[in-house]
């Protein structure tokens, strides 16, 4: 049995006695007998480290690692530089708590300040928080930021990630407010439907648009944002972070709040987490932004100093009047994103985005040329796109046998493909060959 307790039974005895107890039993005398567990837990016997490693490694090997991945849909395989993995493994970064004690935590505070700056630079926004749980949660929190008196209804593009829509709905259930889906048409958000819906509704708090959307389409965000603003609603954009290197910024599209799933910035797929929700907004909404924010100030001697600031927004000060309950966030993931962005630099990040774009377009051409795998939409896209598929199960099984995780099956029978800078040309060519094969079978 493993244990991380330093004290030996003799020391425990000595300490018990020094604290005025004669047994462990006495220590727990506050707990009524009726709720004391009178048996050992029904858990397995504890294991030595060697056995634990063996067991966990065996469990991990029950998963299949696909050498080639053409699936995204909210979780993306991008290249993770060695510097990112190694730097973020630093034990101090790993084991510190939230930097409440500023003097002893300047390093972590500065790293968050740097992260906030990078998120602002990418989105064009003026204020970023220190992170929330993930992209879907960031969208839900952003919607909450935009609620104001009578304006409580959240409009969400139906071309958003299903998990994001579902999360926004769940949060609306909590807040006793309404969510209204704005229909998607031919792979893009239906602008005229949005206009019609908003015109009839004075309770509209905001409109959430995913860019590029779930189907990969680059939306005409500025135009959609204008429709929202014209109706008195705020405009929230949920952005793929890699695409921010090349696409119009949320600020350029007129967004009030920019959020997104930061996983592509150096976090592994990890079966869905931990990921990173980033959130940034215009200065006007700063005091409605949830979560930690680090600010710059100085100490008595005039040294630059960083602190958690604007804490009056937060639950530990404001309790039930806080705009959000968030306490722990995804700080180490935010650090990961900072290290990733600093390692890639502007040229590297732009190259990643451009390669995603070029490779996805190359792949779309190759796949789309296979009979039965025609592109479903004629829209402009970034690094994801939808094709038809004559036989989804057969196709994906064939690809799996060749170590390829194919596109995600959609309810309508199509496949949602994703291509990143990690997919080499030879992989794309091979994919197209295999699809030909699947089609001919």
């Amino acid at each position: 049995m493993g244990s991380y307790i330093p004290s030996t039974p003799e020391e425990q005895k000595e300490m018990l006695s020094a604290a005025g107890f004669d047994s462990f039993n006495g220590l727990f005398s506050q707990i009524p007998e009726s709720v004391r567990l009178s048996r050992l837990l029904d858990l397995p016997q504890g294991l030595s480290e060697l056995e634990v490693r063996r067991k966990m490694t065996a469990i991990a090997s029950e998963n299949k690692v696909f050498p080639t991945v053409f699936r995204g849909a909210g979780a993306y395989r991008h290249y993770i530089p060695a510097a990112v993995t190694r730097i973020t493994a630093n034990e101090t970064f790993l084991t510190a708590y939230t930097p409440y004690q500023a003097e002893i935590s300047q390093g972590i505070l500065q790293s968050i300040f740097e992260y906030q700056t990078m998120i602002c630079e990418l989105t064009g926004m003026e204020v970023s928080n220190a992170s929330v749980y993930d992209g879907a949660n960031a969208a839900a929190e952003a919607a909450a930021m935009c609620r104001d008196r009578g304006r409580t209804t959240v409009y969400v593009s139906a071309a958003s990630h299903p998990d994001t829509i579902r999360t926004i709905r769940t949060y609306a259930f909590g807040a006793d407010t309404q969510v209204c889906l704005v229909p998607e048409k031919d792979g893009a958000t239906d602008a005229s439907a949005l206009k019609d819906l908003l015109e009839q509704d004075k309770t509209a708090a905001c409109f959430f648009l995913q860019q590029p959307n779930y189907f990969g389409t680059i939306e005409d965000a500025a135009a959609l944002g204008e429709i929202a603003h014209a109706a008195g609603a705020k405009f929230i954009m949920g952005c793929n972070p890699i695409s921010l290197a090349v696409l119009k910024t949320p600020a350029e599209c007129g967004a009030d709040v920019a959020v997104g799933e930061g996983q592509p910035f150096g976090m592994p797929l990890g079966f869905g987490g931990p990921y990173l929700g980033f959130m940034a907004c215009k200065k006007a909404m700063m005091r409605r932004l949830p979560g930690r924010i680090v600010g710059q100030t100085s100490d008595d001697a005039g040294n630059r100093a960083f602190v958690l600031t604007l804490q009056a927004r937060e639950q530990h000060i404001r309790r039930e009047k806080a705009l959000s309950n968030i306490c722990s966030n995804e700080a180490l993931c935010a650090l990961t994103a900072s290290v990733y962005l600093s390692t890639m630099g502007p040229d590297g990040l732009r190259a990643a985005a451009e390669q995603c774009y070029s490779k996805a377009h190359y792949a779309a051409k190759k796949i789309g040329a296979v009979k039965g795998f025609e592109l479903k939409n004629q829209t402009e896209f970034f690094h994801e796109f939808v094709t038809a598929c004559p036989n989804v199960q057969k196709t994906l099984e064939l690809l799996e046998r060749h170590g390829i995780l194919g596109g995600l099956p959609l309810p309508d029978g199509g496949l949602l493909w994703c291509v990143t800078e990690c997919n080499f040309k030879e992989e794309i060519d091979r994919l197209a060959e295999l699809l030909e094969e699947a089609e001919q079978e």
Partner: protein
Amino acid sequence: MNLIFEESRAGRGCTILPACDVPETALPQQFARKAPLRLPQLSENDLSRHYSALAKRSFGVNDGFYPLGSCTMKYNPKINEEMAALPGFTEIHPLQPAHTAQGCLKVLHLAEKFLCEITGMDEMVFQPAAGAHGEYTGLLLIKAWHHSRGDQKRTKIIVPDSAHGTNPASAAMAGYTIVNIPSGPDGCVDLEALKKAVGDDTAGLMLTNPNTLGLFDKNILQITQIVHEAGGLCFYDGANLNAVVGVARPGDMGFDVIHLNLHKTFSTPHGGGGPGGAAVGCKSSLAPFLPVPRVAEHDGKFYLDDNRPQSIGSVKSFYGNFLVIVRALTYLLTLGKEGVPQVAENAVLNANYLMALLKKRYQVAYDVPCMHEFVLSLQDLKDSCGVTAMDVAKSMQDLEMHPPTMYFPLIVHEALMIEPTETESKETLDRAAEALLELYEKALANPEAMHRAPERRVIGRPDEVEAARHPVVKYEYDS
């Protein structure tokens, strides 16, 4: 030290990606970003040194004693990190077909099974990403349960005044009105106040037990009974589970819903503020409302079940902070049935031992045996020499210890909340006690010096008022 932006020089960088190996396609101009893309440009050497320097200006559990009350800063085992770094976990896409992700699903299944046994719950999910997220999820279960019974009038959640701020905040986010009830003179729930507070508008009670004073509520069964009899449900805030893990189970205390902080009781690291990992468990009556997707088993194979019509939906994407759950499972497999209760035993022992040492000088807020943590009140010291809890905390920084939680819980004046955790040795506690007792003498002898602390850190006390009044929340580029 410089900000990374101040270290940046145009044209520098690392060579991470190859040239594009397919014909390049240009993004149409109308979609293209106009703003310059300003990101740091550093050589890998300078990058590496920058983050080394930031780490050195921080303090983690590896750097020394970290008795931050309520945060359970226990040792984070290295084997957990190694297991969470296995490519067989890190490289798995969350939307892979289930037959290619049986290992991941087994992790979730085993963690659920073990933690249900530990807490006395019937089902458990891991989708929430942190403690407060778990509270919120639990409250939505309560709300959904009442609604499913056509009972929409229960709009109030009862919260003791000793609760963490997240409790009322989570309840408010879930659409509830908060009824704060004062603690009794013993620091526990005042039964009479509770009885007065409950009614047919009571949706439920949120309780941390042991509470934030480190006290186990001896009336816990009456408390949950009062709430149940009023038609409410009881939510257990697992923040302090470390005190009772393997010794008492929330399920046996009458709780209907719970959340756990994997990054407290189950040894996953805090990461400078996250990622945490939460588990939300409930009795079977509430299980239909749990977030989707759920891990299910059929013919010895695991799959994800999305078909739960009564579910509250999702509180985030996918299935939670999976790699955090890998760490927690590794820890549970290591400890096993005998190891788990020893955690609680030694956590409570360490707290009582340290409290006994400090009582020689310091005033304990509630002078009774504590559970895993205890609260000092420095009001007397402040009255006698002007030295505050803040001053003592800041002075500890100069002694290579992380300060305790300050000024919480709110009901204790000049509070210092100390939680040593079970992974500290007797010598560490002895040294900490000695240091704190010396600080007490120093406070009396030289209060001015204490106001100046810390003096051996990279900055002195920062001007927080200025920070909030004129927020500077990002680096401003010159141009």
